[in-house]
């Protein structure tokens, strides 16, 4: 039974990523921990179901997305994740640009952004900004930048076209950029 032990250790390596993803999507830390625990139980039980075609993290994340949907259903809260409608719908970037395509607020230079990576308060602001994204844009962004999904994998998971995937990622990144500028780099919160 050497093989399952190797995989079990491998699963553990992904825990911090799954926890962070779950916490940002569920917005409740305790619930996130429970849900991730369920993911590990399912994963260990269903290890044969892992085809090796996707990475372990992608596989675990798919299980996690199902568990998150289960959680919402049990809580009686259907969370709308209509990525297609969101990508096609009213443009969330209209507020950032003028009609002629120029920025409403000219992007500013960020002074020594690398320093912020050592500051816990910066990560608090970053998480708050991620929390302000719309459901589909937030999910697409986290799958890409936190869980390391390819665009192709995101499209499959959200059931949207490649074009719509790029639209969602574009919106998420620009809104996050503006949010970080407003709440961190241009604000007095930073030392």
């Amino acid at each position, binding site marked *: 039974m050497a093989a399952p032990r190797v995989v079990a250790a491998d699963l553990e390596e992904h825990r911090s990523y799954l926890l962070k993803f779950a916490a940002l999507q569920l917005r409740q830390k305790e619930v996130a921990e429970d849900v991730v625990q369920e993911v590990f139980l399912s994963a260990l039980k269903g290890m044969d179901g892992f085809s090796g075609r996707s990475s372990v993290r992608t596989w675990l994340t798919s299980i996690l997305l199902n568990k998150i949907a289960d959680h919402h259903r049990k809580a009686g809260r259907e969370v709308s994740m209509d990525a297609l409608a969101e990508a096609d719908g009213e443009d969330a970037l209209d507020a950032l640009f003028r009609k*002629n*395509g120029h920025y409403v607020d000219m992007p500013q230079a960020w002074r020594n*952004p690398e320093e912020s*990576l050592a500051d816990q308060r910066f990560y608090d602001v*970053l998480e708050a900004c991620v929390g302000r994204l719309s459901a589909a844009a937030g999910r697409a962004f986290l799958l890409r930048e936190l869980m390391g999904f390819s665009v192709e994998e995101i499209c499959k998971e959200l059931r949207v076209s490649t074009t719509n995937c790029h639209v969602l*990622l*574009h919106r998420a990144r620009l809104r996050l950029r503006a949010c*970080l500028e407003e709440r961190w780099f241009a604000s007095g919160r930073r030392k």
Partner: protein
Amino acid sequence: MLSCREVSALLSDQLDRRLSLKERIGLRLHLAMCRACGRVEAQLRFLREAMCGLPKQRRDAKRS
């Protein structure tokens, strides 16, 4: 000449796919003349770097 808004889509896309030659030329021409979009390019790369540090950051913070 591409607008800043069109350029912002290419700046995001280049993190996810290889841009076509035409897109790359349009992008570089715009960036040569627009300081704001050059900042956005660097900031989107920084955003990616910051997200990579997110799970690790929290774990370390808890330990200390």
